[in-house]
């Protein structure tokens, strides 16, 4: 090595500043794409669903409000993850902006991680905003019902009133919803990473999105296929290997649908939450690594 080389500043193998630059840039790009319209649709859905509920009891009303909100949240974050990620890298390749970025001292790994982090940040913001909207509506409805209950029961003894109010409160919000929302977010993260992986070898955005929608549906069936594969041995070998392929290639998305049960009052143990979260992070990491691997071999 010559003196001249030594004079050049030492290169850092991984730089948070560089990743952060790409992340904020990606976030800017995504916000300019008006993806936040999804949030507007969510708000409309929240308001719309309350029209249905006029003639139901408060337990029914709260349950439907929670179901609709969290179900929509799950769908919208997943959809957002797929649609926002699908075009991220192909667009850069097509516009050749990737040349200018990778011609700087930016490892391809950082580029991938930066892009993905941008999407994950977008998803986090969307999830937070949707949660806030949902909680606000739930709180307003809860207050209204509490008020109504107090008015109706003004003559009843103290104990009964307390009982009734407790019943209203407990059917409105249960704390277990929050870990449920975290899991919804992690599911969206894994879908984003998987979309990124698919987009590194897909030829068009449409292809990526179609493949991801396919994966989304099969992913919810993966558990059924997997258990069948591992427990039934009476099937023919063709069916058997098909099931094995489904079980190995697709992620188990059904595992991440904890809210369905949480909403109706099932308590989620900390261990289950932690394991699910770890699985989600594990999937996300692996798909990111795979995306990076394919991207390294890519002819730009």
């Amino acid at each position, binding site marked *: 090595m010559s003196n001249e080389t030594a004079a050049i500043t030492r290169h850092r193998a991984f730089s948070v500043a560089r990743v952060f630059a790409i992340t904020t840039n990606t976030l800017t790009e995504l916000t300019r794409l008006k993806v936040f319209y999804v949030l507007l649709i969510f708000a409309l859905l929240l308001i719309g669903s309350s029209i249905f509920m006029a003639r139901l009891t408060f337990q029914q009303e709260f349950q*439907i409000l929670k179901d609709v909100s969290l179900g929509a949240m799950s769908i919208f974050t997943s959809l957002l993850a797929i649609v926002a990620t699908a075009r991220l890298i192909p667009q850069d390749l097509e516009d050749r902006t990737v040349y200018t970025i990778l011609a700087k001292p930016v490892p391809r790994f950082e580029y991938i991680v930066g892009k993905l982090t941008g999407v994950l940040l977008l998803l986090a913001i969307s999830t937070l905003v949707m949660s806030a909207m949902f909680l606000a509506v739930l709180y307003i409805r809860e207050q209204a019902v509490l008020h109504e209950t107090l008015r109706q029961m003004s003559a009843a003894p103290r104990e009964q009133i307390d009982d009734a109010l407790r019943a209203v409160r407990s059917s409105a919000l249960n704390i277990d919803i929050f870990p449920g929302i975290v899991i919804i977010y992690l599911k969206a993260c894994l879908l984003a990473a998987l979309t990124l992986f698919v987009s590194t070898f897909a030829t068009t955005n449409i292809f990526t999105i179609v493949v991801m929608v396919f994966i989304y549906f099969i992913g919810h069936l993966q558990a059924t296929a997997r258990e069948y594969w591992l427990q039934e041995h009476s099937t023919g070998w063709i069916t058997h290997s098909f099931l094995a392929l489904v079980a190995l290639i697709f992620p188990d998305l059904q595992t991440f649908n904890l809210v*369905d049960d949480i909403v109706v009052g099932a308590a989620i143990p900390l261990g289950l939450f932690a394991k699910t979260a770890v699985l989600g992070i594990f999937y996300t990491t692996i798909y990111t690594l795979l995306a990076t691997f394919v991207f390294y071999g890519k002819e730009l």
Partner: protein
Amino acid sequence: MMRFAYHAAALRRSVLVLAMVLAFGVMKLPGERALFVQHRQLHFRGVEFNLDLREQLGQLGFIAALSGFRSIVADVLFIQAHVAWERTEWSRVLLLFRQVTTLQPRAILFWDMAAWHMAWNASVAAMNDRTQPRLALRVKAQREYFALGKDFLERGIKNNPEKPQLYETLARLYKEKYKDHASASEFFAKAAALPGAPGYEKRFAAYELSYCEGREREAYQRLRQLYDAGENERLPTLITRLKFLEQKLNIAQDQRIPDEGR
């Protein structure tokens, strides 16, 4: 013919990626299965997606239920059931509630509503059915609806053994519809034993027992215990039942509870 040979490098890479995906697939299996087992134990994911469910829900509902819309589909069906009830279409109510509870077996509310519609609403409607002149058949229909309600509650309990509400409803069903006080008492007691049960469950269990021929002593002991527990439990019904049993069991005067209004 296509010539693959040149693309050997690209092909090798694709095969490598596929191998990595499969290897990762093998790696993730134990974790996925462990979670699956835990879900089962905790009665999470109470739904098994099978052909039966698909037949029930239709293609579209099935796909929606599969893709994270499960609870929303259940809600939609529930609202439909609500409408069917307003129109007193009982067989439709039954069908819809079967779907709702299959989709969302952890929702106490749905089991409870299903049982209530069957055992309390539909049964009464069947008894008052003017199109059926024969009493025997009306009674038969009524009993069938009782049984349907009971069935919903039993399955609901199986799916949610840790929640007291359905035990209580089942107890009420036994008490009000079957006049089976022993079973009613048993289920009130079961509800009372669960965490989060309201205080009255224990009392109700004892009341029901007081109606059972041959179990008066046991009932008396339980009621007395409640009475001794404090002022809060000394409600009019409790005192009436206790006095009734004191009479029936010939309890010694000095051990009896004091008279009202003393």
